[in-house]
């Protein structure tokens, strides 16, 4: 089972008109899509507008998505085309960043955001980051190691199990419990008033 296949389960539900399934896909990829669009436009609010339009286009085109490629790859192309069309319609050129890189994971837009985001947005971003960091620091070591190997190193459960010399089921449990603890801290932050608006913009 891969990420692509888990996405496909949601895509298939969404293709049958399940709005909640599409919402789950949006929630999974909203950061990545905005981050991608920020290569084309400097203004984070404009990037969000373009990302929103890209998601709407994807939703409308979903019946034609056959699963030949990963959902995110398909969504990625829609977002890029949407951004390019917006720029073309306004007679503008993409900002100075390299715009057609297939892999956006290494692309760091934090520096760009520091130039463009509002102080409030940056403060909130920093608060989220510090909350997550604090929650990770508070985790037992086995949970912390498991979540770090997964999120930072990108290892599969099987690879983590081999590295930590434990069953795959234990890895799954450790990663879940780590996320559960961090999620609880994040909810405290959001429900306390932060994060209910926009992080950026």
């Amino acid at each position, binding site marked *: 089972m891969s990420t692509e296949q*888990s996405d496909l389960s949601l895509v298939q539900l969404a293709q049958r008109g399940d*709005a909640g399934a599409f919402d789950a896909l949006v929630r999974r990829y909203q950061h990545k899509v905005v981050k991608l669009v920020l290569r084309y436009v400097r203004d984070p609010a404009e990037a969000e507008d373009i990302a929103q339009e890209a*998601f709407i286009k994807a*939703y409308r085109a979903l019946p034609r998505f056959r699963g030949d490629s990963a959902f995110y790859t398909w969504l990625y192309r829609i977002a890029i085309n949407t951004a390019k069309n917006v720029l073309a319609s306004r007679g503008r050129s993409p900002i100075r960043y390299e715009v057609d890189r297939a892999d956006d994971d290494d692309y760091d837009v934090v520096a760009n955001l520091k130039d463009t985001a509002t102080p409030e947005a940056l403060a909130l971003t920093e608060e989220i*980051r510090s909350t997550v960091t604090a929650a990770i620091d508070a985790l037992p070591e086995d949970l912390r190691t498991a979540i770090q190997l997964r999120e*930072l190193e990108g290892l599969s459960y099987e690879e983590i199990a081999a590295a930590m010399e434990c069953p795959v089921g234990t890895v799954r449990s450790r990663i879940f419990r780590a996320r559960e603890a961090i999620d609880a801290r*994040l909810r405290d932050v959001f429900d306390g008033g932060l994060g*209910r608006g926009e992080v950026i*913009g």
Partner: protein
Amino acid sequence: MSIKDIEERESQLSAMYDGELPQAECELVARRLSRDENLRRSWENYALIGAAMRSEQMAGHRLAPKVAAAISRRETAESGASGRSTRSSRAWSRWAVPLGSAGLAASIAVIGVLGMFWLGGGASNPVANKTETATASTVKEIVIPAVPQDRTIVVASASPASRARVADVTRAKPAASSNAEPESYVTPPLREGGVASAAPAFELAGYVGAHSAVSAPMMRHSAISAVIATPQQAVAVVPMSEAPR
């Protein structure tokens, strides 16, 4: 649902997020995820946790509600437009059938009315003479409504089976016999002896019968029947309200 069950579900969700859940379970969790806002919030936070751990930017947080609202708005607008279109189509279809029927009836009626004027020329028209001669003693009962506003002319015999109606959709002045609003129908003046002058009706019925090639079969049959039904009975003019139906 027990705490253990909830934990198991969220454990499955976490594994699905990582693409580590078996396909069969994944479909089940996807359905749960699509229905459960709380699970979707956890799902969203998993993405946020990963981004924060990798020091990625967190732009686009809370974009999902905007996307959902925008999709909903557009679908509502489109379904509204589509609904108007459907209603418009239905309106057209509602109008189309009656208009078609009225067109046919109007054609026949106009021909009939024109025929009345034409046949009113008397001896100058041989067809009129023939028709009147042939039908003058044959119509049992003829009703000539002259409703002031819509000029519906009904030619009817005593027998329902032999009744004929011709609708005249042409607008004309009411044939009122007095200044007062007519109670029901304007009828031809009575001839001496109390027998109504049904000449126009004869002429109309005769004309329709004579020009039956342009009439519908049923209409043709009725008009002819009205003419030949009971040859020996006198003609009387009755109000429309009393006409057999």
